[in-house]
């Protein structure tokens, strides 16, 4: 490379880097990003491989992709994808030829400054940052002219099981919430070569069924044994524009219970645990008529999701009972009461409302606060009211402070059910709104089975909840718990608690709840182990859960934002997680040494990889700890259906047809015989 070329190359990278940093928080959804107006051809994604392992209550997602730089000069690759729910980004690796360079998490400002310096000097470097709830953004520099560079990243997230249905989402679709990013970046979602997914699901209880909506033809689903499935998808020339959703179904009628997934490397340091309580209690349907307020976001950012909204809402309205009442309120810049007050849910009124909903159009900004406030009008104290909020929660008009939302919600006695449509939605704000009323919230992807999701939600909305559910552990000193405050637990919902413990021993778990006007107490005993090294990833998940709790406290105005940011930065660095305050910096070993950066993540990843290799060779572990002393006596509730498969129906039809044909032939023979 000549001096001039070198200068141009450095200048190009510098320009890109400056632009990238100045446009921080302005990223797009999955794909490589090129500044609009750039003279360079977009960085290409040659192939994109996703490896997913779901086991022991959490999922590990590893994404490996190859960039190709079609330009005649070295350039930086910028790649972004939507932040998955509750994800903790833990590894980033750049593979240059035979060499792998790995990432370490440090404070964000420092990471960005070092990356900028190294990239400007033409050294191999990478950076991963989190742009609030919008995107994870990866930068790799340089991708050499007309050459390829591979990048790999790993994140963990707790698994969600609702009413016996496990659901995993790998988000790729543009959430449409990042207007500023759209005006700056040109996304390239195309995968030139292979797009592949390899997923493995391991469960201690049998898995009845595995589904991948939208990939029915492409997915090869192998059942290795009752609780072990493998899925493989290989496609050429795909686009990174459709979410990957995987459902797996556990048997109905499984007993409720407690699972404990502990990690404790040695008896000289505290252990960490994830505890999952699956209630096995009988929650009665709301016997009398209820009121339902549907508060719908019809702002511009909902343009890609309005069809899903209309489809879901039409079915939801159809499920109301004649004794129920409903209102439909929409909001964008302004609010509209589409039903002009309460409507009795008679078939005629419901049909009228469905017709309105199916013709909704989107425009303008998002005045979420005004929408909710309008929805809270005209409440009837004598009736149970549920507010069903469907939005991406990216409030940008009127009042937008989370604290104000919390104060508004706390004034009313309503149950809020929040549905966050699409990716890059404002999870923290939705959490604040729903938590303030003890509500429930869930994400909905365009790739979801909307009918199935709706039925799960409906069973929560139309049944009583467990109130003031509180979990206490005695006998073992536990601390730094998350999600342990008294709360409502809805039908089919699990209670996931993270925490730490000081010493091994027998613990007594007491779960108290208020159900149908009665106070209930459920108890069981189980051991916290001295040493448990199978699941080191639990530490990162615990730290991420702590971080979310801190964010919620800041949002609710219960914690000073500076104090919150410091605490998040400390946790991010200590447990090597990419957060809003920390970033992952990828450098060569000697460069880390030069900057005096500890290799905490290298050590942590090595421990995790060893455990993963061990787990891969083991049979599935059953983490249920109350088998001998069950916490609940009733099984989890389920819904059933009498369904015939197409194969059986065709066999019946064929059988009838054959008999008909045979009798016709026989009749013909006999008639011929008689006539002769």
């Amino acid at each position, binding site marked *: 490379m000549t001096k001039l070329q070198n200068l141009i190359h450095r200048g190009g990278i510098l320009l890109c880097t400056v632009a990238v940093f100045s446009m921080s928080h302005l990223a797009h959804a999955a794909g490589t990003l090129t500044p609009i107006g750039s003279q360079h051809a977009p960085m290409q994604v040659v192939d994109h491989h996703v490896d997913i392992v779901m086991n022991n209550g959490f999922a590990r997602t590893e994404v490996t992709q190859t960039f190709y730089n079609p330009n005649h000069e070295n350039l930086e690759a910028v790649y972004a994808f939507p932040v998955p729910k509750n994800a903790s980004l833990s590894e980033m690796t750049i593979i240059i030829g035979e060499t792998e360079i790995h990432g370490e998490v440090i404070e964000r400002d420092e990471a960005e400054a070092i990356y900028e310096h190294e990239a400007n000097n033409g050294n191999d470097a990478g950076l991963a940052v989190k742009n609030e709830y919008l995107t994870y953004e990866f930068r790799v520099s340089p991708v050499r002219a007309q050459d390829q560079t591979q990048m790999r990243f790993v994140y963990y997230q707790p698994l969600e099981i609702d009413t016996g249905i496990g659901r995993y989402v790998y988000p790729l679709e543009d959430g449409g919430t990042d207007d500023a990013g759209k005006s700056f970046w040109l996304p390239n979602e195309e995968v030139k070569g292979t797009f592949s997914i390899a997923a493995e699901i391991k469960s201690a209880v049998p898995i009845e069924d595995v589904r991948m909506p939208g990939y029915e033809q492409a997915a090869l689903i192998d059942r290795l044994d009752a609780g072990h499935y493998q899925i493989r998808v290989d496609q050429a020339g795909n686009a990174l524009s459709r979410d990957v959703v995987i459902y797996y179904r556990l048997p109905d009628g499984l007993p409720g219970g407690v699972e404990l997934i502990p990690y404790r490397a040695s008896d000289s340091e505290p252990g960490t645990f994830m505890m999952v309580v699956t209630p096995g209690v009988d929650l009665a349907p709301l016997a009398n008529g209820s009121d339902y307020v549907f508060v719908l976001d019809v702002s511009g950012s909902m343009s890609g999701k309005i069809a899903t909204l209309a489809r879901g809402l039409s079915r939801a309205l159809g499920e109301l009972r004649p004794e129920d009442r409903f209102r439909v309120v929409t909001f964008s810049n302004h609010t509209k009461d589409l039903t002009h007050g309460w409507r009795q849910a008679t078939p005629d009124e419901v049909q009228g409302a469905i017709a309105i909903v199916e013709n909704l159009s989107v425009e303008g900004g998002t005045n979420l606060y005004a929408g909710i406030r309008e929805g809270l009008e005209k409440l009837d104290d004598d009736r149970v009211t549920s507010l069903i909020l469907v939005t991406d929660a990216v409030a940008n008009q009127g009042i937008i402070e989370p604290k104000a939302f919390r104060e508004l919600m706390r004034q009313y006695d309503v149950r809020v059910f929040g549905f966050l449509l699409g990716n890059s939605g404002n999870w923290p704000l939705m959490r604040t709104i729903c938590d303030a009323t003890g509500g429930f919230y869930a994400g909905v992807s365009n790739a979801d089975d909307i009918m199935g999701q709706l039925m799960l939600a409906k069973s929560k909305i139309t049944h009583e909840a467990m109130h003031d559910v509180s979990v206490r552990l005695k006998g073992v000193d536990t601390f730094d718990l998350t999600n342990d405050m008294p709360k409502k637990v809805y039908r089919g919902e699990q209670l996931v608690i993270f925490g730490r413990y000081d010493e091994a021993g027998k613990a007594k778990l007491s779960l108290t709840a208020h159900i149908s006007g009665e106070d209930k107490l459920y108890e069981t005993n189980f051991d916290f182990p001295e040493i448990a090294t199978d699941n080191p990833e639990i530490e990162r998940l615990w730290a991420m859960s702590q971080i979310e709790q801190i964010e919620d406290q800041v949002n609710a105005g219960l914690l000073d934002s500076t104090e919150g940011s410091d605490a998040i930065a400390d946790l991010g660095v200590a447990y090597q997680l990419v957060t809003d305050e920390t970033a992952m910096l990828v450098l060569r070993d000697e460069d880390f040494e030069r900057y005096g950066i500890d290799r905490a993540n290298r050590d942590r990843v090595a421990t995790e990889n060893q455990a993963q290799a061990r787990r891969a060779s083991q049979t599935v572990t059953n983490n249920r700890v109350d088998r001998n002393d069950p916490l609940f006596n009733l099984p989890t509730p389920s819904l059933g259906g*009498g369904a015939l*498969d197409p194969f059986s129906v065709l066999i019946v039809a064929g059988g009838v047809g054959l008999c008909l044909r045979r009798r016709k032939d026989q009749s013909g023979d006999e008639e011929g015989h008689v006539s002769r």
Partner: protein
Amino acid sequence: MFHGSPIDGTREVGKGLASRILGSPSASSELPVLTFAIALLSLVIFCIPGIGEFLAFDRVAVEQGEVWRLLTSHLTHWSAEHLFWDVLAFLILGIVLERTDRPLFLGVLLGSGLSISLALWFFRPEMTGYRGLSGVDSGLFAAWVGILLRNAQKDRDRLQWFFAVALIVGFIGKIFWELLTASNVFVDSMGVGVVGVPLAHLVGTALGGTLVILFLGAAPALTE
């Protein structure tokens, strides 16, 4: 040659299209109105929002006295695909059976509907909701195969006899496979939150088989 000879005290089984299928010689122009009405009703219930909710099996609602749900739940469905396959099978089997023997058809319809719901009530206490016509379809199928077997025996038609035996053995085998593996073979139509209930198919088949034996036991022969 026609099939079998009249036996004193027998009841006539088989007229029209079904009678040709099942071996009876005389065709009837009688329309299977009940079959069409029930299929149409299932469709209407699915299409009009709110009605299904009022008719589906709901354990607590039944406890509170809404006992009609024990029968009407079979006319409700979770999804369009669920409705399509259940009703298609019902139409095929209902046309055949109703035109063959309407009292038997009605008996299977009501008997399997009620017995399936009671079986769910007593043996699947965790099942809080249920919808679908496939249990009743199973009863109709068992009744049809029973008649097929009966006619094959009378006609000394080995091929038909083996065919009927293969059908019922295959069907019962499928149900037991579903029960043993706790899965519904190939079923993927009801949505992610709903589980298949092989018990409904087993009870429906058992009821259909029992009724056809009782009915044909009282009237063992097909008429000329």
